């Protein structure tokens, strides 16, 4: 089991209201829900982009948000690795400089070595000098993951990491991510639309609807017990696979 998460947050983003309460002893945690249910907003709130109106966020022993105590740790001090849906690669930088971006406090040589090692570990060492615009979706995914892992994040946030990938690289990416999710010093929170992601990662599933948690539990428990229309629909491909 990895790092625990205690989350109780209320926040307004434009007209959207996020009001979630989640407590899990460890990850990975998968966020599911219909479009517009607040998965991305919750990930951005965990990363520190959304200033909450009320609540607490504790990852492991570390309090990242406690509105009552006026604690809101800024994104740069949270130790968060964030992979947005579009990968968020910096187009003006090479792959190597993208991966080394968060290592700016290290000497240049150490930065380059670390970037090279991370890319090699993810099977992307040949991309070192390429520009992001020249990469395929799967390659971008690896580079963005290497960049997020470079800072040794305690909290890894991924928004639909397999959604934009070709079928051929989807399973490979799932396995790649599965290795990262297993780390005992790290909590991974992943938003997904794909039930096969859940089968690969066996996460604690949190189902959101209109900014609120409507169900939470293991894949198996939710599949068997939930009568919520979205969950019934979401898990229906499993019936077909069986």
């Amino acid at each position: 089991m990895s790092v625990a998460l205690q989350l109780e947050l209320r926040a307004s983003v434009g007209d959207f209201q996020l009001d979630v309460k989640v407590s899990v002893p460890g990850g990975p945690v998968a966020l599911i829900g219909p479009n517009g249910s607040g998965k991305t907003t919750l990930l951005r709130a965990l990363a520190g982009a959304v200033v909450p109106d009320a609540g607490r966020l504790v990852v492991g022993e570390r309090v990242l948000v406690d509105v009552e105590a006026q604690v809101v740790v800024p994104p740069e001090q949270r130790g968060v690795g964030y992979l947005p849906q579009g990968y968020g690669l910096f187009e003006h930088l090479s792959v190597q400089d993208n991966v080394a971006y968060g290592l700016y406090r290290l000497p240049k040589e150490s930065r380059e070595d670390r970037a090279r090692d991370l890319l090699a570990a993810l099977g992307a060492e040949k991309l070192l000098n390429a520009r992001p615009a020249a990469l395929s979706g799967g390659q971008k995914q690896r580079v963005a993951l290497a960049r997020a892992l470079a800072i040794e994040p305690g909290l890894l946030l991924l928004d639909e990491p397999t959604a934009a990938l070709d079928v051929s690289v989807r399973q490979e990416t799932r396995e790649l991510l599965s290795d990262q999710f297993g780390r005992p010093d790290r909590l991974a929170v992943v938003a997904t639309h794909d039930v096969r992601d859940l089968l690969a990662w066996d996460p604690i599933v949190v189902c959101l609807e209109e900014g609120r948690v409507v169900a939470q539990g293991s894949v198996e428990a939710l599949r068997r017990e939930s009568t919520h229309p979205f969950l019934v629909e979401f898990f229906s491909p499993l019936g077909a696979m069986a």
Partner: protein
Amino acid sequence: MTRLDSRLSAIPAWVLLLLLALPVVGLVFATSPSDLAHALSLDSTRSALWLSMGTTTLALFLVVVLGTPLAWRLSRKRDSPSRWVMLVVELPVVLPPTVLGIALLETFGRQGLLGPGLAAFGMSVPFTTTAVILAQVMVGAPLYVLTATAGFRAVDDDLILVARTLGASPSRAFLSVAIPAAGASLVSGAGLAWARALGEFGATLMFAGNLPGKTQTLTLAVFQALEQDLAQARAIALILVCVAVLLLLLLRAFGPRSSS
């Protein structure tokens, strides 16, 4: 689109192109090399040229340094105060330059809003080179801020958030991610602002006067030469065209490449 459709739609395009190009071609043909050489040999022309280049460069520096943070803030906020700020930024674009000239006089003039305060420190702005720069900032800044704001709005929020999660402070994320991502728009906006400042006439004439060597820019030199020697006015105008074309070529060299 059929070949006939294509030819028909080309007609208005050619009419407009001719309308834009013919006056410049006319100016080139009307100006003899000897007139050009004579104009360039005059101290007044050379000083107007250097004054134009110097003041527009300084004005551009001020516009970029002050306008970039403003554009960034405007791009990230869509609240009611920001809409009012945008209105203030857009206003100089729609106001006639003469109105801007009067407004600047009423602000920095001896009897103006800030005039007595400046006079207390022994400073007077109207009819100085500083006045020329202020007028150029006033007309150039809106074009830069509007273009830069549009460029920054196209920068994905997630890019900034990723940079922040990787340890970048807000200012480092802005400088190392937002500025390069909006680079093409910033260069394009700077070019527009520079070109507008170079061509500024009305506000400068009213606020800074037309003093050779001190406030007489190239556009004012053309205006003065028109009353004395048409050939010289044509030659100075052609010099202005050459500077503008050079500016456009520089923009072509830097702008599109950074956007691709």
